[in-house]
């Protein structure tokens, strides 16, 4: 969570204690829900019909400072007591250590709004599930400083990972050329497509066979690009807890959702993905770049429906949604697998960090699938965006 945001949101709920974080550009959100059974004792407090359970946020560093050295914690701490004292404005963390020693930390907290990302794994066209180890071994090939990585589906059910390289451009207001596409020919994996100018960046591409995954249910020829750092953060947690990681994704621009599931723990990481600037207003030969080979027959169908969606939303939106999170929509009626989802709403996709100028206009033409009900006007969430992006 500390890889995502500087503040830790604590929200006790009836179904457990939820710890959440969001990044400053609102393009990454994570939540860890610890079921009551995870604890020896769990008392979320009482909430009446008009009052909600108390929630707060604390500085991530302050909270982490209490659990500084994991090896020594494991050796010396017997149990940890967490108390939320609204009236004293303190979050109390008490560690009961060996030799009868007690460490009590009284952290100052801030009251906060409910931090809630809007996402729906059911609406994702593609899903992958792999043991964390497989993905950890795959990402080791990329430099830790890598900003964004592209996940794609290839022929024969193969899955690719590739570092995302920004195309070079001279002007400040960049206009993208043809979007990067993972073409799906019946021949060997595509070679890296030629950028506008010879790129000096090293490109690494890795292909994983379908049988490395526990399950693969993907739309062919799809790809998404998301932030590497937050993904790696979750991956190391998944590996440490030996849980398989499920990746739910859809079209570029729509959020990718990573989930970990356990009997007492539910983890969600929602990351914005880079959109393709594929719209009618763009001339295909803007930069004089040569075209990629024509996409396979499968692809144009997806592309058309995607573009239709773009046009629909741009026409029908009620005005630019707030750069902050949720555009809440009414709950769909379909039933869900038990304990899989906390929320059922869509997230307004925010382009990946760092926010690029070229994506600003795309942002307001936010993606909605056709046929969805119109945007609800209620927006429950979030602190104001201090970036000044809007």
């Amino acid at each position, binding site marked *: 969570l500390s890889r995502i945001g500087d503040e830790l949101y604590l929200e006790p709920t009836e179904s457990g204690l939820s710890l959440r974080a969001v990044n400053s550009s609102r393009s990454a959100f994570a939540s860890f829900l610890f079921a009551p059974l995870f604890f020896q004792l769990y008392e979320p407090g009482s909430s009446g019909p008009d009052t909600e359970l108390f929630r707060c946020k604390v500085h991530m560093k302050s909270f982490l400072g209490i659990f500084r050295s994991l090896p020594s914690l494991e050796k*010396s701490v017997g149990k940890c007591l967490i108390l939320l004292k609204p009236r004293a404005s303190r979050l109390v963390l008490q560690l009961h250590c060996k030799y009868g020693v*007690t460490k*009590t*930390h009284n952290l100052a907290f801030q009251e906060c709004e409910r931090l809630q990302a809007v996402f729906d794994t059911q609406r994702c066209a593609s899903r992958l599930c792999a043991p964390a180890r497989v993905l950890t071994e795959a990402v080791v090939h990329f430099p830790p400083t890598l900003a964004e990585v592209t996940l794609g589906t290839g022929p024969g059910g193969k899955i690719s990972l590739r570092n995302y390289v920004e195309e070079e451009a001279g002007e400040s207001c960049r206009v993208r050329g043809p979007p990067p596409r993972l073409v799906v020919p019946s021949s060997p994996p595509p070679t890296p497509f030629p950028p506008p100018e010879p790129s000096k960046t090293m490109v690494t591409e890795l292909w994983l066979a379908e049988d490395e995954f526990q399950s693969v249910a993907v739309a062919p020829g799809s790809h998404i690009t998301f932030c590497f750092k937050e993904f790696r953060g979750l991956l190391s947690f998944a590996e440490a807890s030996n849980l398989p990681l499920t990746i739910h994704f859809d079209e570029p621009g729509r959020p990718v959702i990573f989930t970990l599931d356990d009997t007492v723990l539910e983890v969600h990481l929602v990351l914005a993905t880079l959109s393709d600037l594929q719209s009618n207003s763009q001339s295909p030969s803007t930069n004089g770049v040569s075209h990629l080979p024509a996409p396979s027959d499968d692809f144009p169908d997806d592309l058309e429906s995607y573009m239709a969606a773009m046009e629909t939303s741009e026409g029908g939106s009620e005005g630019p949604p707030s750069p902050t999170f949720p555009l809440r929509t009414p709950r769909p009626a379909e039933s869900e697998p038990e304990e899989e989802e906390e929320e059922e709403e869509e997230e307004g996709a925010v382009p990946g960090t760092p926010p690029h100028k070229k994506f600003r206009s795309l942002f307001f033409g936010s993606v909605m699938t056709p046929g969805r009900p119109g945007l609800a006007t209620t927006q429950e969430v979030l602190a104001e965006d201090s970036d000044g992006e809007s």
Partner: protein
Amino acid sequence: MCDFLCWRRSDLTSCARIGCVRFPGRPLCSRCPAMPFSAQPPASGERYALSASLDNARHLSSLLRAVHFQDHATCLATASGLRVTVEDAKCIQANAFIQAEIFQEFSVQEESVMFRISLSVLLDCLTIFGTSSLPGTSTALRMCYRGYGYPLMLFLEEGGVVTVCKINTQEPDELLDFDFCSTKVVNKIILQSEGLREAFAELDMTSEVLQITMSPDKPYFRLSTFGNAGSAHLDYPRDSDLMEAFHCNQTQTNRYKVSLLKPSTKALALSCKVSIRTDAQGFLSLQYMIRNEDGQICFVEYYCCPDENITEAEL
């Protein structure tokens, strides 16, 4: 009279005492520290104010490191041994005691010998062969001090290689006297150092003070900090396995500057036990019992004044 000494000292008496006057007319006498000397340590027949030998220099250097929070230290040598004192801000004093029995040879000609010296330089010299302690290897040390105005000479040998060091000495400072004696102690606790090490290493440095509460009632022994994140309290119950002795008569809460006490962490890390005592004025005495590689016992103690800017403690 030695020209060198004449330049440094105008006191004939002290020159005579040192012995330069035995070679009149020579610009520099053979006993003068300015003369290039051979690698041979002086014969033990020489009259040195302080002369000591130690088979393993680490017995000295590790203890000196435990009090090395200022550049300079005051050394006092008496028949019972060597005491090295470091002070800061007129609020804190640390003493390292290496008793005569630790040395293979220890002789002090007068009642006491005292000088001020750069502790940083002294430690650099003592560890000139490196600080890693490989089993079986040790640096042998011979230390000589002719007296007032003379430098401290160190002869260090390891594996047949000899290093000779000469460190200038200065006029000793007047040292603080905390007047801390056992009859004035109000509260006293002896703890196994293991229990405090982590606490001191992880002290919230954003807190200006470390508050120590000692009481016959709960919380018995409590260390508190008040930092940017909030307050933190570390409680040790009187019946804890770590508690070797618990003699608290009165509830006392005193605050000390964290920056002054933090250096004591080094002494704590070396020690096996620590005694914590306070007197009626809130002066703090920390005494660390340190066992060296050969199992011999040495002591390091820290004295600290309470912080005068008392504000209300957070709950």
